[in-house]
């Protein structure tokens, strides 16, 4: 029997802590990719999402709309990811990344190289830009969904994504 978020939250608050696992599995699957893409590191993402779930459990009684646990949890995760990003001061030097090969032979190799360079370039974005870009392009969410999750207006989100794309285009230059 699949329970909705509100039902599970109610059960957990009533003392059935094991039920929390349903929420953990559900939203780890849903937001795990987001954490990894924003942080660029699966260890850091695992730590961030783990900590976010524990904080969510501790503060579960303060979740005002349990039917929207996912959005509420996402904000906590977003916070953890931002903390993690702030701890990591990556020096972005795209010159260190793989030089663009002038002879593009194998399309797959080329894609892999580009992905590696992209990781470095993403580090140059602001946290908001990176989050918005990941939600749009990695998660494939609509702006309306993103607006619900982030609590930011659609126009502002579009601007973040557009600026992120332009920044990437500039950084990646001839590689694109």
């Amino acid at each position, binding site marked *: 029997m699949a329970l909705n978020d509100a039902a599970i939250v109610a059960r957990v608050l009533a003392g059935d802590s094991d039920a929390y696992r349903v929420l953990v599995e559900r939203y780890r699957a849903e937001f795990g990719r987001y954490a990894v893409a924003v942080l660029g590191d699966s260890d850091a993402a695992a730590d961030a999402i*783990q900590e976010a779930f524990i904080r969510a459990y501790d503060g579960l009684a303060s979740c005002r709309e349990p039917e929207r646990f996912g959005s509420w949890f996402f904000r906590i995760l977003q916070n953890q990811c931002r903390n993690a990003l702030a701890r990591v001061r990556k020096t972005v030097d795209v010159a260190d990344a793989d030089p663009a090969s002038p002879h593009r032979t194998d399309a797959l190799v080329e894609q892999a190289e580009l992905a590696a360079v992209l990781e470095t370039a993403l580090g140059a974005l602001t946290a908001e830009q990176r989050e918005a870009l990941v939600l749009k392009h990695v998660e494939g969410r609509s702006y309306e969904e993103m607006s619900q999750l982030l609590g930011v207006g659609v126009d502002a989100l579009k601007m973040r*994504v557009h600026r992120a794309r332009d920044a990437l285009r*500039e950084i990646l230059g001839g590689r694109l």
Partner: protein
Amino acid sequence: MRPHDEFGPDAHRYLDGEPHGELRPDDQVRADRLAAALRAYCARLPVPGAEVDDAVMAAVRVRSPERRAPGWRWLVEPRVVRIRPVWVPVLAAAAAVVFWLGPRAWTPGAPERPPIAAAARDTVYVRFELVAAGARTVAVAGSFNDWRPEALPLARREGGAWSITVPLPIGEHEYQFVLDGERWVPDPTAQAHADDGFGGTNSVIVVGPKGVVRS
């Protein structure tokens, strides 16, 4: 920034999946390549797996003793368990088994910790690592997870190292690593070892709220 280094508005609408006019040719090529690159980037990254679920539930159970303990356990002093996030630094040397804890900053806005009170306890993230290049699977089992070898599998890293980060309540814990589901080995670089009463040796770790204290 020169205008032709930016995507035009139609390119953005195209990438947003919205109705758009005709794109400049270079915009079209670059937009497609960027979208493809982002997809490829995403596909490369391993997504956190079920070990996260296990670690979370381990911490949740620590907070809910009445859910797992038999009746007489309620004679034990009550515990108020708060999470105190702890960053876990990992030693650089690859040849040794390492086991570290370390402090990290409080989240701004977190309430001031009270002086050590009888009821206050913390949970601390602890990273277990083992170098075992020949193993197919490695798990950690101990007093903190009811000695279940299947509950906390370590993830394989480069160089034959395996690791997992687990939230543990402060206090003493005994544990061993389990290789390939059946070979129980103590942690060579544990704080201490103790007879397990069955002729074997458990590794011992005493976890304090500050983690490892370093000079």
